């Protein structure tokens, strides 16, 4: 009987752990911001979530005729970083209830980094809220999950 109780507890523990794990990993995938200019792949590294640009609608800078780089970075020494592969979402931690927080979002258009919180609205929709200091001072962008075309 004791063994049975222990096994049940263990099974319950693993089931809870696994479901929490799979809920937190729902963020993983390829997403498109509302402007449709880029596609961002969110992945997990060392227990946190990061999103990198994997596709650009216009990959070539019309001025330089070369692949786009992070030319607006406030740190001049980092302006050669290519935008393709750029990690624009960084350090998101799963907080439960479909929310990932404590991260930042970088806007390569102006070189600004904002505090950011991500909410999973449904399986295929993310609310990405970039804000300044307090969440009320922010803007929400809705990102859509991408999948193989049917």
């Amino acid at each position: 009987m004791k063994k049975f109780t222990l096994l049940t507890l263990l099974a319950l523990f693993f089931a809870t752990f696994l479901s929490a794990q799979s809920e937190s990993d729902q963020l993983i995938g390829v997403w498109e911001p509302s402007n449709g200019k880029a596609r961002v792949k969110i992945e997990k590294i060392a227990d946190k979530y990061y999103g990198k640009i994997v596709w650009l609608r216009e990959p070539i800078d019309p001025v330089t005729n070369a692949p786009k780089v992070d030319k607006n970075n406030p740190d001049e020494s980092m302006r050669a970083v290519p935008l393709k592969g750029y990690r624009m979402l960084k350090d998101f931690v799963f907080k439960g209830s479909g929310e990932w927080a404590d991260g930042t979002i970088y806007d390569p258009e102006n070189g600004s980094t904002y505090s950011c919180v991500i909410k999973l609205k449904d399986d295929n929709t993310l609310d990405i809220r970039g804000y300044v200091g307090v969440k009320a001072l922010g803007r929400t962008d809705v990102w859509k999950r991408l999948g193989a075309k049917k």
Partner: protein
Amino acid sequence: MYMKKIQRWLLLLSLLPLAAAAQQRDTLPPTPAEEEDFSEYENLGFADEAAKRYCNPKILDLSPNRFVSLGWDWQLPYQAEFSPLGAFEDGESPSPAETADFRSSQGLRLSANIPVISRNSFVWQMGANFWNINYGGKVQTENQNAARLADRLLSRGLRTAGINTTIFKPLGEKQFLLLQGAADLNGDYTLADFQSLQYLRYSGAVIWGKRPHDRLQWGVGLARTYRVGELNYLPVVLYNWTAPNRKWGTEILFPARAHVRRTFNPRSLLLAGYELEGQSYRINNLSDEDQSLEIRRGELRARLEYQRQLGGFIWMALQVGYRYNYSFNADYLPNDGQEFFRGFFGDQRYAMLNTLTNALYVNLSVNLVSP
């Protein structure tokens, strides 16, 4: 000083969620990099097939939106002539009953704009603003019919407090609707002697527009405005554009304002152009009689405006320009303050015809800008 305080405050607030989230976690070995075929990202579609794309409210390189703005506006010396109270046709030149040498007119300008709903398919912002104009200088009364308006300006100044709202509604990927509305209380009121809300003045605009690409949005619409001092209905044209080299652009909401923009880098820019600025200011119980006037203040400000990032999301803006007086006339509006429409062609008479000479002006503001 204020800057530092605001920055510290923001830093503190931004650290709060981090502190709350501090947790112990074991170090994990790195996850193996997944194999990644870049070309696969080319042929993806929305996982939810019903999902739509919407047109963005901004274009590239526009001067940043302001969440909070704290500024000071300062007009250099100018002269003013005020007619006696009467009934004057536009274009008449009655001899002045009062003259004033204004040393300066200056004051605080505070505004806030907070997004209430900010989504791809709908953006709704609410804002509030408070502007103060204090007059300094000398007044000379030319005859006994003087309404003593200049005295009143010197002793009480003018102020505007109001709320406004902006709604951006994308109509698909390329078209949008922009609605703006504002309610302002303008006059020589003070906190102790507040003005009745029946004198609120309402303005607004409806614009339909297109956003063909990331560097252009244009639109046409109609505005109910007080920017020329008195109520008017005007067609409006929106034209925000950025050149392919991203150095030049325009920010135009004609006729309210029009600027050419030179972008030095994402953290500094220069605007050159003009803005029409005006309101109808209620002056209750002027002089000995129960005369209640509305000063129809409208001016054109030709200017250069330099904006730059001070640090983080704190920006400064410095305007230097020339203020042309368009109108400082006054209408007699009986006590219920019932507004009327004169437009450009109406022949209603003015209670006062006043003239101001033009003046240089400077406006400096510190702003918390939006993402």
